[in-house]
């Protein structure tokens, strides 16, 4: 048993992070927030880098890696606030032409919502009757499906959890950095216990979620995945929330990155399984263990 990342996994993570820092920097993020639509060039670049083909076998032209590696990728995507129907497109690789290469943008309904419906080339699943809504997340255009969301797939849930985990980590990082730099009452606010303990709890939530998400990626067990999403949802939402509290007024501006994490975390929490559904699934698992 060695639950740490392998050297290859570390290298993959670093590579993706660097690629995203280059291809989706602060300026690109601002442009996306201000309603730039889906950046097809970036999508293609992601395809070229193997983002979508990651789990496709090498014979099929893919990278041939597994769920744990996909989780690392989506953590980085969540951390960078990368926009677009990333998960649906990766899951379509090998099934929908052009998806693996980043030439085709694929979306799919999830939890009563469809992301990027107007910009997608292919919709997997039934989006009949979808109506556009004014999305609370400036990085994700949304359509609302009539009726509630049906079930979902554990793989989608796991990759969503990975995005939440990356976002939670980033919110923690932002809060800590701000707490080190911002001075009030003659010292960095991070020297005050109230702020210190907020940050410590952010780290705890993130690390517990990380253990859950990584383990679920290794086992692929649907119950463990549902539990991982539950913890990752909570980590992402609460870390963004606490980061906002650490930032104070400065986090309340449109320019700060903080609110983007909160809104995206709220959105991902609506994907299957929602926390209420996740708790029911966990309870059902307990029932089986009786």
């Amino acid at each position: 048993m060695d639950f740490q990342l392998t050297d290859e996994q570390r290298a993959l993570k670093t590579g993706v992070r660097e690629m995203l820092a280059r291809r989706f920097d602060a300026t690109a993020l601002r442009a996306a927030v201000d309603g730039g639509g889906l950046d097809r060039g970036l999508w293609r670049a992601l395809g070229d880098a193997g983002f979508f083909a990651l789990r496709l076998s090498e014979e099929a032209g893919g990278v041939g890696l597994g769920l744990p590696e996909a989780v690392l990728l989506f953590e980085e995507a969540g951390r960078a606030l990368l926009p677009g129907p990333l998960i649906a497109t990766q899951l379509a690789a090998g099934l929908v032409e052009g998806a693996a290469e980043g030439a085709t943008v694929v979306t799919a309904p999830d939890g009563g919502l469809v992301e990027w419906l107007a910009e997608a080339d292919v919709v997997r699943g039934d989006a009949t009757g979808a109506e556009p809504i004014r999305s609370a997340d400036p990085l994700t255009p949304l359509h609302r499906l009539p009726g509630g969301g049906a079930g979902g797939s554990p793989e989608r849930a796991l990759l969503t959890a990975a995005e939440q985990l990356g976002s939670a980590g980033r919110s923690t990082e932002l809060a800590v950095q701000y707490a080190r730099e911002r001075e009030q009452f003659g010292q960095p606010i991070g020297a005050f216990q109230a702020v210190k303990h907020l940050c410590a709890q952010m780290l705890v939530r993130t690390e517990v979620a990380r253990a859950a998400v990584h383990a679920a990626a290794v086992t692929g067990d649907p119950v463990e995945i549902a539990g991982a999403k539950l913890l990752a949802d909570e980590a992402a939402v609460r870390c963004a929330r606490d980061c906002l509290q650490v930032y104070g007024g400065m986090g309340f501006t449109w320019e700060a990155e903080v609110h983007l994490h909160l809104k995206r975390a709220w959105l991902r929490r609506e994907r299957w399984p929602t926390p209420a559904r996740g708790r029911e699934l966990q309870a059902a698992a307990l029932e089986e263990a009786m």
Partner: protein
Amino acid sequence: MDLSYTPEEEEFRAGLRKWLAGVLPTLPPKPDPLDWPGRRVYDTGWQRRLYDAGYARVHWGASATLRLIFLEETERAGAPYVGANFVGLLHAGPTIAAEGTEEQRARWLEPVLRGDEVWCQGFSEPDAGSDLAALRTRAVRDGDTYVVSGAKIWTSHAEVADWCELLVRTDPDAPKHRGITWLAMPMDAPGITVRPLRTLAGSDEFAQLFLDEVRIPVGHRVGAENDGWRVTMVTLSYERGTAFVGEVVACRRVLVEIARAAHKNGTWDDPVIRHQLGALNAEFTALWRLIQWNVSESERSGGPPGVGGSVFKLRYSHARQELYDAAAAVLGPDALDLGREWTADRLSSLSYTIAAGTSQIQQNIVAERILGLPKGR
């Protein structure tokens, strides 16, 4: 322990209700949220009607109980929000009423009550948020004028205000609380630049002010030079007192609406949701009672609301966020729809544990000033 109102108070309430029922249908349509001049006209027009009907004076001078009834009834009837008159009626006005000279009161109070003049607030600065007293906007005396330079943030209605209640540093060498002065700045003075500031809710409700050698007459100073911190505390404790009365009434109405929405979309059948809403019902009932308690206390002491306001603010700001979290739980995916009123309100509610003293600062105040716990070294 008496929660009943006197015959005079009941009469005031009945008269106000009747008046509101008659006047509200005659109001013009609400302006677009981005139309600042239109909002000013609308808000001050409403204030003028209140003035003419004799209700304007309820904001200061009158008993806290009458103010409570006024805020309760206007909110209940769906009357316009205080809006552009907020700073004038609830911040600058009470400050001038308590600390201004006879002449200053005569000059500034009446126009606020009549809706003739609008005030905005220039307290916070980018580097002085929780630590408000660390503000750095400088005022240098030049004869009978202060020359003011610096930057202010979180100013509402700056675009359409006539006056700004401004805190400036007049003595950079004094301990930080002792070198601050309160000035009334005319917003048409040369050297003022207003830049809109977009919030995470996507609104341009606030602005930044940039002040470049703005000249303000010494006669516009309220209180003594370097005594502005004390002068300001009057305003802030006032804000923590009855300023949220209308909001609590509104929250109780929203809670019923959320319950109605839950009935409609079937989530009411989920005990988890039902318990969440039930707990909030107990919470907001208690917060209403706490307001009544605070008002009674301030009636007895005769002064502005005490630190008890911090107790209220700590709990209310949290409860308001829970209310909109509950709304989101009921709405499910619709909570991501900005077209829903509660989605925008949920975003604004996030500021409640931050603005006018973060919850962390409020807890320090409660611990040190009410409980007498020592300051840390």
